[in-house]
């Protein structure tokens, strides 16, 4: 471990670093103390590394294992539970699945030779630290995952969760996160077609940013992240590598550095959406030219992850010359280069004969491309720094055979009392005026209010293929401009339900997303999930996680749609306070022709409004109990996936046959909120009567209006289609009743015998909430 000078001069040779720990050093100095604990490894994990290698690891190897075996990269606490997804996937469910769990993103066959890839991912902790860049790089990261499957990204969605709306820290993070999501997505030219914004005190110290991206490609153009073919070249292209996001590894610097050590490295990654836009176009040209054999994006753990995953997924080994990596910062140490999370970088595996074409394409887009390695025989990942071998590991041990924890879990002690604290005794409105006031309060509440202050900061039009976007029930984008074939996506989770019962809550998230997709007229096809939970070291949280995964996997099997991939974010807690379990579910559906999609708001007087589904007294975790009484207790609404499936069939068939002019699903706030939203969508009111359904279901007006029973929707049916529509429902034995008529003239939402609410008053309550808090002028 010596410094060196250029021959014949007194100047230090920048090509050698002081203190590069080589494999031969490691072989000959087995007793060197190593900072494995500071890097987050356990004693048994360190021992296992030594066993795998047959010697102590080099510092670079130690850094690589520590990051790749971290919770974030290895899923060590969640793996045993996530296995349920695969176990619950039948052969029939797999039929449309072209690429399943384990790749960068899942891919489904949507017909006509088209494939669609989608995934949702979290970037929670970085967004708390640096809201704009955390959110921006979250979008950048998920889009790169989609790109690396060989797809053109065609849309994004964002699901955001913040603490209390009037808390100063919410004011610190919200505008920055929204600006970051918009700033990155808009500059990439990807329409933001939907998402969620939820406020709950449990997220105060742990805001959640879950970003989704979807991409399209022809089936034959699917690319995978594997390096095979001995002699094939490994090319790093995109941005230069700098010191982004390597905070954790900087502890190594303190171990081996002398007085020339660098300043503390930043932990935050900074994104450049223009660089990524150029990268998207460049990659698509590379794919079209068929010069790419395997492709991987660089995300968490940077080069160490990309190289080990490509090698591990492939059939050979890999050799990498780290000194060839183009650097933005020449002072980076080898471990820092390996761990750097600099954005907008990709790694491709290319046959030597195609290198010239590859480089011609990257040059046209002014994208830097460097051959940094090659695929080799055997099963070793070797990394060289100039002529020194600094890493020699079996790639599978790094990327796939990491530790697997069986963490203890038990049902929380508080749960019995929480479930017993039913909302039955909460004071309910007694008359029409009270019902009207309750509705206005709900529509003005942070979780149900108009979100235009946020969503108008996102471009929903770019690419000209957006058939439906927020605030409609799902985002719908056209994939094929000739036929109109396209997809619908919804992301949903009610974490209050999940806190009361994680199994049911997770199933209700799945049901809601499924319902939202069907409401637009699309056939649900596949699922992605983003599981946001507290610390896995807390047995209560681990139990919640296991229950949620059990709920989703069983629910998917019942509904016949597979989980294609997803993300786990753990440690979302501040001291002992974990967030509510937040198992976000994204469902993707397909439409033969998105021109037939059903919007959520009615427009034409005289159409008949039907309520589909039966209503019971179910207020556990409801929006009304939160807004009126700040109450969380009891059980969430009953799950009936068979009913959701039948409801979905009705909505899809009705859409295909042109039987409904509008459809809106019921969720938070129940029927009243759904009616209000459908009226406000186009500013067209309605006259509603409830007595028949109250009698049929044995509930009073308040319950019918605000209960959150699942598997329900409202539709507006042109008079000429009434019979065909009701026949459709009857043939499936599904509860349905006409509850009103669309009426434009008076611009009111009238519930006969209860109240008349002007759309002006409703709109004012609905739209004032966010601007009142966040408007800066």
């Amino acid at each position, binding site marked *: 471990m010596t410094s060196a000078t250029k021959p014949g001069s*007194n100047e230090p040779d920048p090509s050698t670093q002081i203190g590069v720990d080589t494999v031969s050093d490691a072989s000959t100095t087995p007793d060197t103390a190593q900072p494995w604990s500071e890097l987050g490894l356990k004693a048994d994990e360190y021992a296992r590394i030594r066993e795998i290698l047959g010697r102590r690891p080099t510092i670079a190897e130690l850094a690589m294992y520590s990051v790749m075996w971290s919770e974030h990269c290895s899923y060590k606490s969640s793996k045993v539970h996530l296995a349920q997804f695969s176990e619950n996937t039948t052969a029939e469910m797999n039929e449309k699945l072209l690429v399943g769990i384990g790749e960068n993103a899942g891919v489904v066959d949507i017909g006509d030779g088209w494939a669609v890839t989608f995934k949702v991912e979290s970037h929670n902790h970085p967004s708390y630290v640096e809201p704009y860049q955390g959110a921006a790089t979250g979008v950048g990261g998920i889009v790169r995952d989609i790109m690396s499957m060989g797809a053109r990204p065609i849309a994004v969605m964002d699901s955001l969760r913040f603490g209390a709306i009037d808390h100063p820290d919410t004011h610190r993070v919200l505008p920055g996160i929204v600006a970051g999501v918009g700033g990155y997505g808009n500059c990439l030219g990807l329409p933001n077609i939907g998402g969620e914004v939820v406020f709950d005190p449990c997220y105060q110290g742990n805001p959640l940013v879950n970003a989704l991206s979807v991409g399209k490609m022809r089936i034959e153009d699917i690319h995978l992240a594997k390096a095979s073919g001995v002699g094939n070249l490994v090319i790093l292209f995109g941005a230069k590598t700098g010191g982004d996001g390597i905070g954790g590894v900087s502890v190594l610097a303190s171990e081996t550095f002398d007085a020339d050590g660098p300043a503390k490295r930043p932990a935050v990654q900074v994104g450049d959406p223009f660089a990524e836009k150029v990268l998207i176009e460049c990659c698509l040209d590379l794919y079209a030219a068929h010069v790419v054999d395997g492709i991987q994006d660089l995300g968490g753990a940077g080069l160490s992850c990309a190289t080990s995953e490509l090698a591990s997924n492939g059939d050979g080994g890999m050799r990498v010359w780290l000194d060839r990596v183009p650097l933005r910062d020449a002072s980076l140490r080898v471990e820092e280069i390996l761990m750097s999370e600099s954005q907008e970088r990709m790694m491709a595996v290319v046959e030597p004969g195609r290198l010239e074409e590859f480089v011609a394409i990257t040059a046209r887009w002014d994208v830097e491309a460097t051959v940094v390695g090659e695929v080799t025989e055997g099963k070793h990942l070797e990394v060289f720094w100039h002529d020194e071998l600094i890493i020699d590991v079996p790639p599978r041990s790094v990327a796939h055979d990491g530790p697997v924890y069986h963490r203890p879990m038990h049902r929380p002690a508080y749960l019995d009392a929480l479930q017993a604290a039913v909302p039955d005794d909460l004071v309910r409105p007694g008359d029409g005026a009270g019902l009207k006031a309750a509705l206005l309060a709900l529509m003005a509440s942070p979780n149900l209010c108009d979100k235009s202050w946020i969503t108008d900061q996102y471009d929903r039009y770019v690419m000209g293929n957006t058939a439906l976007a927020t605030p409609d029930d799902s985002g719908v984008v056209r994939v094929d401009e000739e036929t109109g074939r396209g997809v619908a996506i919804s992301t949903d989770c009610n974490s209050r339900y999940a806190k009361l019962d994680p199994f049911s809550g997770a199933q209700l998230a799945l049901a809601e997303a499924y319902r939202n997709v069907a409401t637009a007229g699309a056939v649900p096809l596949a699922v992605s999930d983003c599981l946001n939970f507290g610390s896995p070291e807390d047995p209560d949280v681990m139990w919640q996680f296991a229950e949620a995964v059990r709920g989703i996997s069983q629910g998917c099997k019942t509904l016949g749609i597979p989980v294609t991939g997803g993300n786990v974010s753990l440690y979302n807690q501040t001291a002992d306070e974990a967030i509510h379990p937040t198992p976000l579910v994204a469902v993707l559906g397909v439409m033969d022709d998105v021109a037939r999609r059903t919007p959520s708001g009615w427009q034409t007087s005289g159409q008949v409004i039907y309520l589909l589904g039966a209503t019971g007294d179910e207020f556990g975790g409801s929006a009304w109990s939160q807004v009126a009484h700040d109450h969380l207790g009891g059980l969430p609404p009953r799950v009936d996936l068979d009913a959701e499936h039948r409801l979905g069939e009705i909505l899809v068939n009705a859409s295909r046959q042109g039987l409904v002019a509008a459809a809106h699903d019921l969720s938070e706030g129940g029927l009243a909120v759904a009616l209000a939203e459908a009226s406000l969508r186009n500013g067209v009111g309605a006259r509603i009567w409830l007595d028949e359904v109250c009698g049929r279901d044995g509930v009073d007006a308040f319950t019918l209006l605000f209960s959150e029973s699942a598997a329900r929707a409202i539709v507006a049916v042109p008079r000429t289609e009434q019979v065909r529509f009701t026949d459709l429902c009857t043939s499936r034995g599904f509860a349905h009743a006409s509850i009103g008529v669309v009426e434009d003239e008076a611009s009111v939402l009238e519930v006969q015998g209860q109240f008349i609410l002007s759309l002006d008053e409703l709109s004012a309550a609905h739209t004032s909430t966010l601007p009142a808090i966040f408007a800066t002028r």
Partner: protein
Amino acid sequence: MGIVVVDVMLKSEILDPQGQAVAGALPRLGFHQFTDVRQGKRFELTVEGEVTDEVLAAARSAAETMLSNPVIEDVVGVRAQQPAPQSPAAEPQAAEHQV
């Protein structure tokens, strides 16, 4: 190696929303003495060798054609940056690296 510093500011008649935002935020941090804030841009252009009059003229020309938009911005400064003082540790380091 020389550096030319170019400063560009929005013309005074153009409303500066970013400057206004900063001006509004400063009092919240306890700074009450600043009555106005305007935000501009500073460019550092590196040349090999010294900053001569020709270099300055070229920098001004670049500033007026590209670094600023004359419709809304003024080039308010073009000057050579003074070199940073020598760090005291420089010399001893050289000795360490001698063979």
